[in-house]
């Protein structure tokens, strides 16, 4: 097959006419608002459907790791999330209180998140693969009042290694008999808290190069963006079966794995199990998924599993496939053409943006390797930071930092307790993303790299500082430097360089011990996959570990490149 740089679309030949591009005003009109005024995501996602003709339609089709699928209608979702809301209220949870949810992808996770929104809580879903340390750090940063979890996760991640979480007043174990009894006895109706567009809805934690994770504050008004992007970037139509494969512990899994499909009143697939190529093909086929939103790592794992496996399945219902998390390589876009019969549409956004900002949409020609063009209403530019402000890059195909004109509806409204850090993200009315990119003559944006040392593994941001801190808690470790090592499947793997304190000898046994320590504290998703011993680690004059130098050495770059690599670190 020839592989031209642009995949042209014949819109008239598509299975279904793509949605017309529409801006935020149109998205606002698609929402109902709370009776009596105000805006609440849970109302737009669930309540209004549960009170109308969609009440009996399947909202979430839950696929357990083993056993039969469980369809949950909009009415059932409304009742279950109201029961949860009532349980939270009974424990004194009020508007603005933080509720953390640490569960695998089980129905109770969705009930808890939507129930939390109904009472006006600041809801924070945590990735269940996190270890005790990242969990406690986030709960403490967010001053969590309630933690919703399961018995097994509580034993493994909370009870075993007790890291103090002083603000926590209640731990709800959703699979305990006491909880089940209380849940069943609770009223299936509740009054939805009157929240305004500027009131906090979600706390999403993201990682920076230095210091603790940043708690990005999001608001109920973001639902305007969820509605708009579901329409334009994901091309959702009534009757669609939508599958977002991201875990709600990451922002994609919340904005698009929970909120967006429900706001659009379509059926959302939730798979409890972890990635498995054969299972995923089976789900796409048997569940008749029509719109699929996944990630480059998963696509590359499917590619690795071979064309034979894909060819055993047919996907007549599939209409649109999108990907996010890291740049999708052209090879993967073309694989979509071969294996699924359509290109994969890359798009770009980040925790701070709350929703998709730049995308290859259903109606657009796809340029494999490009993240696409800004959605209607979004203004994106390539800029350079200068002493006096920013300079807009007017030339095409020139590298600079990707910036967005501030003020879109799902823009984050702060970093918890870090006002200064938040303000620094904005210059001259532009939000600076920290991603380096280029724009071509057709207005398509191309990702170049990160402006900082943050590691992107399997689409997840990992802060090197968080990993280094835990490594240095091991009695043998004197200093630690952590980098992202390029990997063909997951993008980057976490690799640590450690130097040892006097009296300790480098060796396989010690390496395994340090690895075990890191995994116990951080969890498999964050802990290093590789640890290398080094007698000393390179530092800047101010004492900062030069991660870029470690990375250059790892990549075997010549010495001459090191000075430039260090620039901007």
């Amino acid at each position, binding site marked *: 097959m020839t592989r031209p740089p642009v995949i042209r679309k014949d819109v008239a030949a598509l299975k279904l006419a793509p949605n017309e591009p529409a801006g935020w005003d149109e998205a606002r009109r698609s929402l109902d608002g709370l009776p009596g005024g105000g805006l609440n995501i849970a109302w737009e996602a669930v309540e209004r459907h549960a009170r109308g003709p969609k009440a009996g339609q399947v909202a979430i089709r839950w696929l357990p790791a083993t056993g039969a699928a469980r369809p949950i209608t909009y009415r059932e979702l409304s009742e279950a999330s109201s029961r949860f809301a009532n349980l939270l209220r009974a424990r004194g949870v009020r508007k603005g209180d933080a509720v953390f949810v640490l569960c695998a992808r089980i129905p109770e996770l969705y009930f808890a998140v939507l129930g939390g929104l109904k009472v006006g809580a600041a809801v924070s879903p945590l990735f269940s693969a996190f*270890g005790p340390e990242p969990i406690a750090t986030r709960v403490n940063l967010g001053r969590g009042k309630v933690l919703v979890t399961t018995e097994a996760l509580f034993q493994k991640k909370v009870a075993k290694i007790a890291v103090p979480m002083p603000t926590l007043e209640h731990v709800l174990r959703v699979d305990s008999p006491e909880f089940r009894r209380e849940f069943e006895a609770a009223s299936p109706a509740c009054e939805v808290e009157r929240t305004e567009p500027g009131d906090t809805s979600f706390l999403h934690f993201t990682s920076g190069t230095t210091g603790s994770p940043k708690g990005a504050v999001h608001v109920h008004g973001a639902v305007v963006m969820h509605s708009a992007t579901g329409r334009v970037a994901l091309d959702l139509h009534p009757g669609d079966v939508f599958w977002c494969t991201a875990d709600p512990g990451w922002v994609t899994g919340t904005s698009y794995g929970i909120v967006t499909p429900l706001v659009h009143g379509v059926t959302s697939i939730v798979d409890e199990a972890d990635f498995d190529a054969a299972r995923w093909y089976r789900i796409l086929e048997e569940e008749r998924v029509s719109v699929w939103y996944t990630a480059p790592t998963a696509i590359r794992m499917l590619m690795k599993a071979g064309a034979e496996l894909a060819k055993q399945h047919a996907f007549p219902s599939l209409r649109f496939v999108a990907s996010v998390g890291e740049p999708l390589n052209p090879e993967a876009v073309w694989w979509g053409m071969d294996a699924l019969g359509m290109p994969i549409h890359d798009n770009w956004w980040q925790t701070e943006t709350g929703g998709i900002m730049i995308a290859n949409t259903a109606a657009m020609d796809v340029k494999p390797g490009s993240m696409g063009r800004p959605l209607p209403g979004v203004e994106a530019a390539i800029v350079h930071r200068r002493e006096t402000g920013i300079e807009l890059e007017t030339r095409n195909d020139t590298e600079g930092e990707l910036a967005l004109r501030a003020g879109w509806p799902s823009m984050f409204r702060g970093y918890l307790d870090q006002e200064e850090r938040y303000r620094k993200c904005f210059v001259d009315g532009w939000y600076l993303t920290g991603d380096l990119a280029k724009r071509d003559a057709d207005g398509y944006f191309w990702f170049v790299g990160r402006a900082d040392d943050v590691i992107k593994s*399997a689409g997840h941001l990992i802060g090197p500082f968080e990993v280094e801190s835990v490594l240095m808690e091991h009695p043998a470790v004197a200093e630690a430097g952590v980098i992202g090592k390029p990997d063909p499947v997951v993008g980057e793997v976490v690799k640590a360089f450690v130097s040892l304190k006097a009296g300790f000898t480098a060796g396989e046994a010690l390496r*395994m*011990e340090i690895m075990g*320590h890191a995994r116990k504290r951080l969890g498999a998703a964050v802990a290093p996959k590789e640890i290398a011993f080094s007698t000393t680690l390179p530092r800047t004059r101010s004492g900062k570990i030069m991660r870029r130098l470690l990375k250059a050495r790892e990549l075997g770059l010549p010495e001459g490149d090191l000075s430039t690599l260090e620039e901007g670190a």
Partner: protein
Amino acid sequence: MNAIELRPLVFAELRKIAPELEEGDVEPGKPLRDQVDLDSMDWLNFLIAVHQRFAVEIAEEDYATLDTLERICELVAARNPDAS
């Protein structure tokens, strides 16, 4: 070796991926990933290690059925009776 004799050897491979494991942490008949914190990459690396260490072919279609230590040992024993 038979499947039961292979257990400690397969467990040793698992421990190279997840060194935090201690003897007795894994019940052979229970789903492995419920008991051990393994992400997708760990899981893949573990199966690759089993493939290399015991010289057995493991196809993508097998992955879903290999959910317990017991089943992995049975597969190794069945596909390479000389594995040790």
